[in-house]
């Protein structure tokens, strides 16, 4: 109900804002084929190529994750979309409009900052209504939309509090409401859950996802947490050294990593060297092998059909609740990581065990 209200009531605006808000509803007929497009975008800081030739197409209404280790260029890309930085070379479009030279305050995007960046001298409602006030909206209308936005993020009754009196989770909701109340075409989220504790983070993952679905907005978020990217995003772009190394659905990224880096960074796959892969399958390419695809088998049990059996010593066994992670040292394949369900007790450290996996679960990657 409240969400519908917010959707219908596109803010009435004055000054130069109409151009900005002309087509706020993403479901309108003019919806462009791409929400954000990057063509050969580069951003250099002196000799450092923070962003080094990125091509990206983010689709309208999509929950898009930019995943990568720190310094991989993902945050710089977000800043380029937000208008806080300008590309050294290349071309960026937001819903079909070139944004080179367009300052942040004239872009149809809003950002949820990593530290939330709430204005300390304003209360919650004033923070949420800030953008509407800037656009010259009347006090009563502003207040109505602000309260709606706070309902949307399930934060009612705290309108008069100052940011300093809120918990981290509440502050994040205020930051979210403050950005959403302006009905941006693209919502940018910079490590949105980074500062929250684990339980809150998991709850917020679900909430962000359902919020994005019900508002049909384009969300672009930056994270270094692969779990977060996989669970929330419709598509993930994996960044490394200023480049996008793979774009795909979470399943594609996780099940079919294209390179050694993706296999290792997303989900910590075992990477099998080409020589060994050739011995096992006849194909001389590196392959990724997901830890959960490997099972422990009884010493005297016959090998399952079409599978590889390796023997190894348990170097470490860590209990994680639902699963146990086991590190095996094998003479044949070196170190192998296993994730086995905790239905049976994990083998003790130092035990010699047999591990088996199907040849089909080897995913061939590009040979570097």
């Amino acid at each position: 109900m409240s969400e519908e209200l917010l959707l219908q009531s596109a803010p009435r605006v004055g000054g130069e804002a109409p151009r900005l808000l002309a087509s706020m509803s993403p479901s309108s007929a003019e919806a462009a084929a791409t929400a954000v497009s990057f063509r050969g975008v580069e951003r250099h800081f002196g000799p450092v190529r923070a962003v080094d030739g990125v091509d990206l197409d983010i689709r309208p209404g999509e929950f898009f994750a930019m995943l990568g280790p720190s310094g991989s260029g993902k945050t710089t890309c977000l800043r380029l979309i937000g208008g806080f930085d300008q590309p050294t070379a290349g071309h960026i479009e937001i819903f079909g409009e070139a944004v080179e030279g367009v300052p942040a305050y004239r872009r149809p995007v809003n950002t949820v900052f990593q530290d939330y960046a709430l204005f300390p001298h304003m209360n919650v409602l004033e923070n949420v209504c800030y953008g509407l006030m800037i656009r010259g909206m009347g006090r009563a209308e502003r207040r109505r939309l602000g309260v709606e936005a706070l309902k949307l993020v399930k934060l009612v009754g705290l309108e008069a509090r100052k940011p300093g009196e809120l918990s981290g989770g509440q502050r994040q909701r205020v930051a979210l409401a403050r950005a959403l109340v302006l009905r941006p075409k693209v919502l940018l989220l910079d490590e949105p859950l980074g500062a929250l504790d684990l339980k809150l983070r998991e709850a917020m993952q679900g909430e962000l996802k359902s919020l994005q679905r019900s508002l049909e907005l384009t969300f672009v978020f930056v994270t270094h947490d692969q779990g977060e990217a996989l669970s929330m995003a419709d598509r993930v772009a994996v960044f490394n050294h200023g480049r996008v190394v793979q774009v795909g659905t979470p399943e594609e990224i996780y099940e079919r990593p294209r390179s050694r880096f993706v296999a290792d960074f997303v989900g910590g796959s075992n990477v099998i060297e080409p020589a060994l892969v050739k011995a096992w399958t006849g194909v001389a390419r590196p392959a990724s092998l997901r830890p959960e695809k490997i099972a422990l088998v009884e010493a005297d049990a016959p090998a399952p059909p079409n599978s590889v059996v390796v023997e190894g010593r348990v170097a470490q066994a860590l209990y994680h609740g639902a699963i146990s992670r086991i590190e095996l040292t094998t003479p044949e394949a070196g170190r192998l990581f296993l994730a086995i369900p905790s239905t049976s007790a994990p083998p003790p450290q130092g035990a010699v065990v047999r591990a088996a996996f199907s040849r089909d679960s080897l995913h061939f990657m590009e040979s570097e």
Partner: protein
Amino acid sequence: MTEAVLGTAPPDTPLRRVSDALVGRRGLLLALLLAPPLLWLGIIYLGSLFALLAQSFFSIDEYSGTIVYEPTLKTYGELFAPANLDIIIRTLMVATAVTLLAAIVAFPIAYFAARYARGRMKALFYVAVMMPLWSSYLVKVYAWKLLLAKEGAVGWFMQAVGLSGALDAWLSAPIVGGPSLSVSYTGMVLVFLYLWTPFMVLPVQAALERVPVTLIKASEDLGAKPSQTFRHVILPLAAPGLVAGSIFTFSLTLGDYIVPQIVGPSSLILGQVVYTQQGTAGNIPLAAAFSVAPVLIMGVFLTIAKRTGAFDAL
């Protein structure tokens, strides 16, 4: 294991016992640390202030010139005599002008120092702001008197750039004008401005330094033009610094009696009146009453500042 640790414990000296006792009783330690400064503040600092306040409730016998030690509001009544009220209002105007101008001059300097200056540049900024405070106050005021005199550097410069007409027009204006800059209120305000600007720059700079850059980015992200960001985010967050700076410039101007003696017209300023009343005139109660006026004025100023939300960002 424990025995080994206990075995290496240092010997039980008297000093150690004292420190052990203090560590155990946090309150005692705090009391010992705070007692000397609190005694100083309580007796000498606040005490003299209250002595002053008490003096202002006495009066002077007009014939004998001796102080009558009976509480009365007669001396305060004298403040409202037209001549005395004039002095208070005149002083207030000068202090207000100095404060406003100091804020206008200091803000860009402080903003640059807080936002853009780094490393050597920042060190240079501190030196540049503080350096005037290193030299003698009297020398600086006399130097300004020479600069502002009729044949001084300022007049010469205005003539050189062909603006002596503008200077003459300004000097012929009522109130702010006079025979020359050095005997006008304009000159007095300029000298006060020169003297007190560092006291405005530093607190404003400290306040701006505490404004996170992401707040400015967030404002921009939410559609605010730089001018709007300045008005709605930067200025409110700098307000505590501006108020702190204003307290300095305002109260320093209210209390000064040397500058108005050297630069400016012959009519008296509050500080000069206090000086002459307690000195040559020997009217301590009236001097005290005059001294209470700035305290009350500052109180009113701070109350107004608080009402307008200047301290909300603290």
